[in-house]
């Protein structure tokens, strides 16, 4: 048994005596006796490192995760350059707390300032915060930004947003008294812009995803025009890995850009930790929630980074703060920044192009099979797309036999497929062969 307590029994006894006590129990005299547990906690027996390692392998072996993956839907398998986990493992970074003492936290603060700059450059906006928990909570926080900035309690959102993001927005909106209005999709799988215009009355703005949950690229310029014509603000929920090729939110006039930074060098890790990024125009900077790093100087004129604009935050404004966020996802933010700086402009373009190429190749191969159809054939997509096929469940079962994870089966029976730079042409051939066999054996013809 161990507790990472270095002091020996003898030392502990001496310490107790130095404060006039004889046993550990004396320290807890303030706790009423009848409330105390008075028995050992009922927990599994302690373990050595060796035993713990074996135990964790047991859990790992209950998973079946290593094979080819064709599933995204909000979390994506991309290649993570090895320098990212290695550098993030510098314990000067990861064993630090929030950088309250700037003089001894310049490493973290400068890294954050660099992260904010990277996010601004990716999104084409003026200011970014130091992160929130994930993409969904970024969307929820964006609702509050819209409410506070426009002083209106109605917000429109696209039906084509990721349903997990919508679910989190609804949870927060219920508490904040914000009315959420869903804007339907057209049969092309994108925002019904007329419905946006028709519902903007009294609304603070519109939250749209690009690409959306179904993989489709939205007509963001037209959406932006419709929202701004009605005096609203546009929030663009984007997948950052697209931005090496796809136009940036700032390019089409988005006022706020948000999303999940997981594709930028963060492992899948069964759903987290990821990182929610938020960027905004200069006008909206003070509406951003949470920590923000800023540049200033010391008395000698050296450049110094600090946490700034703190009077917006919970530790100062308390119940008047627009968000309660305190700890965010700092280390994940820095990993995302490392990823972008490792890839550079050429690498970000290359990875985006490879995703487009692979997804389109896979889509064309799948749709060459009898009984498989692209749901939105005339709408551009990035690395995800929906197919309509009978027997989606059977297809995934057949693929699972080879430890392959196929597209996500949607509630309506369609399949949402994803391909990234991690998938190879050989995998596409193999997957299509299995699907063809499955459709043959269960009768996939319509």
């Amino acid at each position, binding site marked *: 048994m161990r507790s990472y307590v270095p002091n020996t029994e003898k030392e502990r006894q001496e310490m107790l005596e130095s404060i006039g006590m004889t046993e550990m129990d004396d320290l807890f005299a303030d706790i009423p006796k009848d409330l105390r547990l008075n028995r050992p906690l009922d927990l599994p027996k302690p373990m050595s490192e060796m035993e713990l390692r074996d135990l964790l392998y047991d859990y790992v072996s209950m998973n079946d995760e290593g094979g080819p993956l064709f599933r995204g839907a909000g979390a994506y398998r991309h290649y993570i350059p090895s320098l990212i986990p290695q550098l993030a493992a510098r314990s000067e970074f990861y064993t630090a707390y929030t950088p309250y003492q700037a003089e001894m936290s310049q490493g973290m603060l400068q890294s954050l300032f660099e992260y904010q700059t990277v996010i601004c450059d990716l999104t084409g906006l003026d200011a970014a915060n130091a992160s929130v928990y994930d993409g969904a909570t970024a969307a929820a926080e964006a609702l509050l930004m819209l409410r506070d900035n426009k002083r209106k309690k109605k917000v429109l959102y696209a039906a084509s947003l990721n349903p997990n993001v919508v679910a989190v927005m609804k949870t927060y909106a219920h508490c904040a008294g914000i009315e959420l209005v869903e804007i339907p999709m057209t049969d092309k799988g994108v925002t019904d812009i007329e419905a946006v215009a028709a519902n903007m009355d009294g609304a603070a703005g519109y939250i749209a995803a690009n690409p959306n949950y179904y993989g489709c690229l939205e007509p963001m310029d037209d959406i932006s025009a419709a929202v701004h014509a009605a005096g609203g603000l546009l929030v663009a929920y984007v997948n950052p890995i697209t931005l090496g090729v796809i136009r940036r939110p700032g390019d089409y006039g988005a006022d706020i850009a948000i999303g999940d930074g997981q594709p930028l060098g963060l492992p899948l890790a069964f759903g987290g930790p990821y990182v929610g990024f938020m960027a905004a125009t200069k006008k909206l900077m*003070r509406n951003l929630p949470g920590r923000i790093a800023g540049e200033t100087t010391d008395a000698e004129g050296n450049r110094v980074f600090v946490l700034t*604009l*703190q*009077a*917006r935050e919970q530790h*100062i*404004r308390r119940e*008047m703060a627009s968000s309660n966020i305190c700890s965010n996802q700092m280390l994940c933010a820095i990993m995302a920044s490392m990823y972008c700086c490792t890839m550079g402009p050429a690498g970000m373009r290359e990875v985006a192009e490879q995703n487009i190429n692979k997804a389109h190749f896979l889509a064309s191969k799948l749709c060459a099979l009898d009984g498989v159809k692209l749901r939105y054939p005339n709408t551009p997509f990035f690395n995800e797309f929906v197919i309509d096929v009978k027997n989606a469940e059977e297809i995934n079962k057949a693929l699972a036999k080879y430890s392959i994870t196929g597209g996500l089966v949607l509630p309506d029976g369609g399949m949402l497929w994803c391909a990234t730079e991690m998938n190879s042409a050989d995998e596409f051939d193999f997957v299509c062969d299995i699907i063809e066999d499955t459709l043959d054996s269960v009768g996939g013809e319509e």
Partner: protein
Amino acid sequence: MAPNDRKYTRDHEWVMVEGNVAKMGITAHAAEALGDIVYVELPAVGDETVMGESYCVVESVKASSSVYSAVTGKVVEINEELDGAPEKLNEDAFANFIAAVEFTEINEAELMNAEEYEKFCEEE
């Protein structure tokens, strides 16, 4: 010294009434207590203010304070200079108003003159 040309509240705001418009700001005493003011969250023209309720927030590095309205009415003018130069409130709080409000209600009996306000500050 608090100027004689205006009235004062117990929350350390000043109010200068001309016709049905009240110009309002914070006192030098309030500005000093706040320290270096870094941001003034101004109301918008057209906003309604309610007597005794917050219409503006003033921030220092480590604090934020509500500024309460001495009148009920509608904001007709704001001091936009404070947006880029909040330090003006530290330099001369009495020379820099925050907002002018066309009011429908004011309780003059609750307000102090300069002498009374100085005494109030000393006692507080």
